[in-house]
């Protein structure tokens, strides 16, 4: 018969995680809460609002105290019309996986209903809001998770958020000779123009003229 992590398990894991985090980072602006998905199973996850200066400390705490061993995704978002202290946002999705190395000829069969404490798989969502400006930057966590390396490369490449301390930063999805400062997921880049469709006629947007400003469909 099939199995799954129960709601009680994920609730208790998320609550104990939030209790520890609130105690540890109580005085600062780091706010952690238990949230629930709104689709079928309503599983719990931990959402943390974290100012950029505290992010490396929070990251290390999550990695080494809470077992968040898996950096799933890094998302950068541009809010040109947002408030002054949230012109950009970086969202990290981390996961906790009870995975350990195996001795030869052995395996670990994890049974969902028997997992307790820090073995329960859990999702973390960390929101780092960055102030308005042309040079958004956030400390890199490349040294905490190897998996954050290419995620951060992609976020810089597409959104233009600088990751302080990231080694070997380079373009990954855009052409390597893209003009400096060209990051297509920033909101000033639009897909369609007044009399031609940039998607087809000028895929990279390099041929855009200053006169096109404000004439976006």
């Amino acid at each position: 018969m099939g199995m799954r992590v129960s709601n009680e398990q994920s609730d208790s894991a998320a609550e104990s995680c939030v209790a520890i985090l609130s105690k540890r980072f109580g005085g600062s602006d780091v706010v952690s809460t238990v949230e629930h998905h709104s689709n079928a199973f309503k599983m719990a996850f931990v959402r943390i609002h974290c100012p950029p200066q505290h992010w490396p400390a929070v990251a290390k705490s999550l990695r080494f105290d809470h077992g968040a061993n898996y950096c799933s995704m890094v998302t950068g978002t541009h809010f040109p019309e947002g408030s002054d202290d949230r012109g950009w946002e970086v969202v990290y999705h981390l996961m906790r996986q009870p995975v350990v190395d195996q001795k030869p000829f052995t395996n670990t069969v994890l049974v969902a209903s028997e997992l307790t404490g820090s073995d329960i798989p859990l999702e973390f969502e960390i929101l780092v809001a960055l102030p308005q400006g042309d040079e958004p930057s956030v400390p890199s966590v490349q040294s905490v998770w190897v998996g954050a390396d290419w995620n951060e490369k992609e976020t810089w490449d597409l959104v233009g958020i600088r990751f302080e301390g990231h080694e070997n930063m380079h373009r990954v999805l855009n052409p390597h000779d893209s003009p400096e400062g060209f990051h297509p997921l920033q909101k000033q880049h639009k897909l369609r123009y007044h009399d031609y469709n940039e998607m087809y006629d000028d895929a990279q947007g390099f041929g855009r003229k200053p006169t096109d400003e404000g004439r976006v469909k």
Partner: protein
Amino acid sequence: MAQMWITMGPQHPMTHGLWTLRVKVDGETVVDTEAELGYIHRGVEKIAESRDFTQITPYCDRLCYVSAMTWANSYIYAAEDLLEVEVPERAEYIRLISAECQRLASHLMWLGAYGPDIGSLTLMTWCMRDREMFLDLLQELGGSRMHYNYPRIGGVKRDIPVGFADRLVAKVKLFEKRIEEYEMMLDESTIWLVRLQGVGYANAEDMVNAGVSGPNIRAAGVNYDARWAHPYSVYDQVDWEPAVEKPTSVKGADCYDRYRVRMEEMRQSCRMILDAIEKIPGGKNTNYSNGDEMILAKAPTRAPEGATGFSNYECTRGASKFYIQGGGDGRGKNPYRLSIRSPMFITIPYVAKTMIGYKVADIPAIMGSFDPCIGETDR
């Protein structure tokens, strides 16, 4: 001997798509590697910002041309998280069956492509023959052979046709026998074993830290699987257990373990499909009309600003994830930002580094065993 850089790709049989692996070699030994991606970057994330939530599904199909159904489903679960939709149980069963059929087709495509990498062209013809069965089944559901646009926010496009269940069961049962044929051919083949065993070691903790997921970590001896760990659909109601291998070395899983785990995973998918088609609520030979509340729930079309949704999904190559922020153009009709996590985008740079120390001739064997797909990598 002087070391030198060799460029493999973008046109190379090893790459399974368009990307470049730059290899630094010392004689026959690989001493450094660099992956270069982005050849087919289409900007799906940007396009999605000017499409409404329904229109995004076909783009997600096209993320991976080998595994369209799982990618569309992956998006749909995130969109349902954002829009707060409850899905009818019959629709969840149909999605499970379609996703598992797609997993079989995708793993067959992987095996078929891996055969010529190793030197067995017969394998490719056999796999293409069997994959055709599942493409036919998926065509009955979605109307197309590769890009189905089948799942909908709140359910599925249409119900399973009358007679589909019988054809499904017959084909899956036939395929279960065929898996044994594959194993007889491959596990007895000296070439296959020599090329795969003891090559491309990767251990579980390293892989998780590097963001590798799915069958690749299950090959290293841990049955971590998003289908039970971050549950969705009705996987808790059907009969299955995650496929997991016992690695033969302290260094972790080799290429052979990764081949074994995918064969086992195909068996589990068959088991799941056979069980789910019997348990499907409303009966396996009933056909509800399009939009019936048994297969499609009503879903809002707009998401307010500040609303977010994300969900984990066990794709055929690992855990995929969509993160959607609501409140885009058209008073929330479009997403403000849609972000896609592709398992292979993270895996390929990791795999490139695991090749260090092996011979140049091992590169296709190692790369192929991780099942790269460039469509989803470059998005």
